[in-house]
């Protein structure tokens, strides 16, 4: 085989991550008799070994902090547009659930004869619990800003617009007043 052909085989040897270049019998035979190719092959093996031992650089902490600041930890201590959007979504969800519960209550029980059944009370309690969970979720996720932006501004503001009318019979004061008269 010619020197060119042998050198091509040596490259293929290097490609396949072999540590030496004499595994192939044809290569070994040629290198034993050709000093130029032997030197050439030894140089390639040595260069590759040196390249493999070059140290990996470490990204400076400041650069890493910049990455966190602009990505997954961008919301720490402040509200972002995404979080504000999320807060509004929670507020809307809570308002819908509570308004639905109140509306259902009014529709089902406007007269003294329509006392809320146990099932209705359970449903109402469940709805209230879910609403509170949603608000608590907002608090957990948006931390202190949730109190101001979500609870005070959004949820309370929305709830103030919901007409809450308890059934007359379910109000203990009304009940007492009726009994007195």
């Amino acid at each position: 085989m010619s020197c060119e052909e042998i050198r091509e085989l040596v490259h293929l040897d290097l490609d396949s991550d072999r540590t030496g270049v004499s595994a192939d019998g044809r290569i070994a035979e040629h290198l034993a008799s050709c000093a130029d190719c032997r030197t050439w092959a030894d140089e390639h093996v040595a260069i590759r070994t040196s390249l493999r031992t070059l140290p990996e650089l470490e990204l400076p902490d400041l650069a890493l902090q910049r990455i966190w600041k602009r990505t997954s930890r961008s919301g720490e201590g402040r509200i972002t547009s995404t979080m504000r959007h999320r807060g509004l979504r929670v507020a809307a969800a809570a308002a819908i659930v509570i308004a639905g519960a109140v509306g259902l209550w009014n529709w089902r029980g406007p007269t003294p004869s329509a006392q809320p059944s146990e099932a209705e009370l359970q449903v109402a309690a469940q709805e209230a619990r879910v609403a509170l969970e949603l608000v608590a979720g907002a608090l957990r996720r948006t931390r202190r800003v949730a109190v101001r932006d979500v609870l005070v501004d959004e949820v309370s503001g929305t709830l103030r617009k919901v007409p809450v009318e308890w059934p007359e019979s379910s109000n203990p004061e009304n009940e007492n007043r009726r009994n007195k008269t």
Partner: protein
Amino acid sequence: MGRGGLSNRKKLGHFPVVALLRNFWAGDSVVMMAMQNEAFERAVLEQKNRVYTYAAMLLRDPIEAQDVAQETMIRLWQHKDKVETGATRYWLRRTAHNLCIDRIRRRNSRPESELEPAEGSTATADPDPERLAESGELGEAITAALAKLSTGDRAVLILREVQGLPYDEIAHALAVPLGTLKARLHRARENLRRRLTRAGVTP
């Protein structure tokens, strides 16, 4: 049960709007978001040094390399919904490479008078391989010789020989077929050897 009553079927959990809200908010979206954040942060921590090393060796400028590493990770964050977990490494490698190439092109298109090195930059202060070889610093001599190769030769040698990446990952990063990649690698190895030999470095 009278008019005011509710059957079990209509309990809260079965109301479509409540179920939707509960699943959407308290369930799926939050869990998914947390998983995405966790996967992203893991990918950053695992790959940041590799991406930075590649950019630093290709650009020969640590400040620009930091910018590339940051930009690469921020782009991953922006595209995290589209990048499959198993393909993150490939995606990072290709993005980092493309960002480096953009910077090199911009650098080459500027007139020489504008090519002032940034503070802390080593872009124009590559050590001379011959001098390093004389002082016996083989590793640094090789780094210096590597820095003087063409961008294409340097890229393939860094990815394959320095970072030891598999061929398919390199081919994806450089957007070349496997055959072309191997031919480039042979040429790059030979160019580096010649340069070191000319510099009197005898590994």
